[in-house]
């Protein structure tokens, strides 16, 4: 299951917006099966509790432990179980790492991209009312027009951003 990352090394040679000869160089099964598990995890919590869990509210609900800002205080009653949900996500990924990946994997994406991108993700997801799991999975699954517009917006902007960053020669 270890992804072959060597194509990344030649990624900068490709012209931006080039249509790949092979749209799924790694097949589709890992993506489709993984996506089914993501959906099943959300559905299990929904069945028992009626809660539609997204991943990004955890950021604000957890900040309510250390900050008295009124924006965070409204998540106080939700903050404990959101920690449990996030611990579950970390552990579930760790199960994959132990059983399929054969140990730890580390990204080569540069820290400044992760840090700056993370700041913008943290701001944007809270202003935009959801992230890839809240809007992308649960909102689209709810056929919510707000979420569909949200997904189209962040997908389009992300594609342009990634293409521009790659065209500027930033890699990885």
């Amino acid at each position, binding site marked *: 299951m270890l992804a072959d990352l060597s194509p990344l090394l030649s990624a900068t040679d490709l012209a931006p917006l080039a249509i790949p000869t092979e749209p799924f160089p790694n097949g589709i099964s890992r993506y489709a099966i993984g996506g089914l598990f993501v959906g099943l995890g959300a559905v299990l919590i929904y069945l028992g509790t009626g809660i539609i869990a997204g991943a990004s509210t955890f950021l604000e609900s957890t900040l309510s432990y250390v900050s008295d800002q009124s924006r965070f205080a409204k998540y106080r009653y939700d903050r404990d179980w959101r920690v449990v949900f996030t611990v579950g996500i970390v552990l579930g990924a*760790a199960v994959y790492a132990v059983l399929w990946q054969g140990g730890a994997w580390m990204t080569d994406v540069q820290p400044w991209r992760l840090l700056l991108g993370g700041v913008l993700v943290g701001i944007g997801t809270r202003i935009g009312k959801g992230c890839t799991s809240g809007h992308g999975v649960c909102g689209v699954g709810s056929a919510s027009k707000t979420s569909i517009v949200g997904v189209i917006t962040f997908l389009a902007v992300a594609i342009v951003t990634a293409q521009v960053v790659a065209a500027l020669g930033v890699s990885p």
Partner: protein
Amino acid sequence: MSSPDRTEHPLFAPLVLVGGLIFGFGLAYSQMARPEVVLDFLQFEDFGLVFVMFGAAIVTGIAFFLVPRIRDRAPMTGDAYERRLKSFDRNVLIGGSIFGVGWGLSGICPGAAYASLGIGNVTILWALVGMFAGAYLQGVWRSRSQDTDATAASAD
């Protein structure tokens, strides 16, 4: 907003933990915990991400459609089964655009970042620190504008 005693069912926390486990396993199995794979999608080199997002959305879509027709309320909380419907305003476009720049720059989003930590990618702590900082910044800014703004009509 939720009531404080809603989460007191003895099986509430175990269920949320198992749900998170399956959710996180799926994010790792689908390779979304690797920023490189997300960036490959955004650069049109591997379109697999489409199957992750829509595969998951189809599963939740079936549940959100069927479950409310079978039962009214969830057994552990008494919450009504509903869909995830949020009001639309320009914040969806503004926030979505800011999110998009960050996602396109880093290749990581919140759920995938937690999962990335789980696959041993400690470097992702840069992104997690950034996400908390970003969420804090907008929280301070919006708390202030909300407190000074007498109109208590919060959009969300």
